[in-house]
């Protein structure tokens, strides 16, 4: 058993456990913090796949910025434990069950399709995870989508400013 396999098992189990706590726990703060833990485990999984840059950006952006805002809002509104929703079987749940089934079949077929020969990463993949190679790809091959996303973000920022300014008029 190699070290990366061991890491994968530990991180994977913890990631799934924290994801379940995120959706199952009553207290919003506990949910938010287990989501933060989940992001850390995901970052660890990226590291086992030689994607160092992605791993650190995952922690920096999701755990360090977005989730801080989420926790901030939960604390500001001082949300307490959520009441248990009593819901009988309805149309939405049936649809959701079908989607879940589809997702599970997709994962299993993907897992069956991977031959054990290609399960290990080639040694040159350690270069692919570096910031340099990601930057090169981003500004040559994926330039148009990158610029489109930048434009989208600018629109979102302007929209946020317009919405928050309206109150003072």
């Amino acid at each position: 058993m190699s070290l990366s396999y061991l890491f994968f098992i530990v991180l994977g189990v913890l990631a799934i456990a924290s994801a379940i706590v995120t959706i199952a726990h009553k207290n919003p703060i506990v949910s938010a913090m287990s989501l933060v833990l989940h992001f850390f485990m995901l970052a660890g999984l990226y590291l086992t796949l030689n994607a160092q840059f992605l791993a650190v950006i995952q922690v920096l952006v999701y755990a360090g910025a977005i989730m801080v805002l989420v926790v901030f809002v939960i604390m500001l509104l001082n949300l307490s434990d959520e009441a248990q929703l009593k819901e009988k079987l309805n149309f939405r749940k049936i649809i959701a069950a079908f989607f879940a089934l589809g997702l599970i079949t997709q994962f299993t077929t993907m897992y069956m399709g991977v031959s054990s020969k290609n399960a290990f990463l080639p040694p040159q993949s350690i270069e692919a995870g570096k910031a340099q190679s990601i930057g090169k790809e981003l500004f040559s091959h994926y330039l148009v989508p990158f610029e489109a996303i930048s434009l989208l973000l600018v629109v979102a920022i302007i929209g946020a400013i317009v919405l928050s300014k309206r109150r003072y008029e």
Partner: protein
Amino acid sequence: MNEISWILIEAGVKALIIIGMMLLVAAASVYVERKVSAFIQLRIGPNRVGPFGLLQPFADVFKLFLKEDIIPAAADRWFHRIAPVISLGVAFAVYAVIPFADYIVIDDKIIQFGIAPDVNIGILFILALTSVGVYGITLAGWSSNNKYSLLGGLRSSAQMISYELSMGLALVSVILITGSLSLTDIVRDQAGWRWNIFIQPLGFIIFLVSSFAETNRAPFDLPEAEPELVGGFNTEYSGMKFGMFFLAEYANMATASALIAMLYLGGWQLPFPPEWLGLQPHTLAMALAQFAFLVIKVAVLIFFFIWVRWSIPRFRYDQLMNLGWKVLLPLAIVNILITAVVLYILK
């Protein structure tokens, strides 16, 4: 597998040395802080425990260990317990990627001065960890179930998110000049008085101010503003848990100083050619000299942190936000633009 266990043992020994060093630095800076503040306010400061009061920080730690640890009845016990651990753990974890000196070669074996100083995401790792450190303070404020603590925690998260941006953008200019995210590369790039502070004076000032805000030090200590919030986020903490927050503050100050020294003041580079002392590169003597100069730079910066705290009054909340979003952020963006244009022309 044998090699892996050796790597783990090496990392563990280095981590123990670094943690021991950090505890000493924290104790020393508490003492210096009290002495300097006394000097600034025309007092004498601690002078009872040991010669010149030198043992005062140890006496304080001993006292904190013996104190009763009180958890408020209405507090969220679990988060109340884990919050100081997050604060302190993050403060120590940053040192995993900080290079304390150049590597040395003994019997054809390369020994690094640091746990992983060559990692190619060094700066981003530090930024990521400091951005996670805010959870310690925020959760402490929330879990105490006290309005003053909660206000302190909320202020802290708002403040840290605001100043992280300008800090990160100031860093981008340094990364543009060096072309690497590794701290070792950035330090090596500043050899021979080519320190980044001379090339990036504006970036240095932005980074310095943001560091003050990120470490919650005065004039940015709104999360624990005593006149308004009793003790801020740590109002409901006592005993060694309070001690851990206290320790984390000084460890963060040392981290911020080390980071400034490394990014802008040449890190472990000697301020003169090493031949003057007859030092050969990659020897133990050279590494010790480099480490000594890094310690001197960090000590000067820690003194500067203390000096500012006892000289400048606290910002008002709106002033803090205006400074962060309307002054530092645009300046940092302009700085990146100028750096990029100049680098493009020079190439």
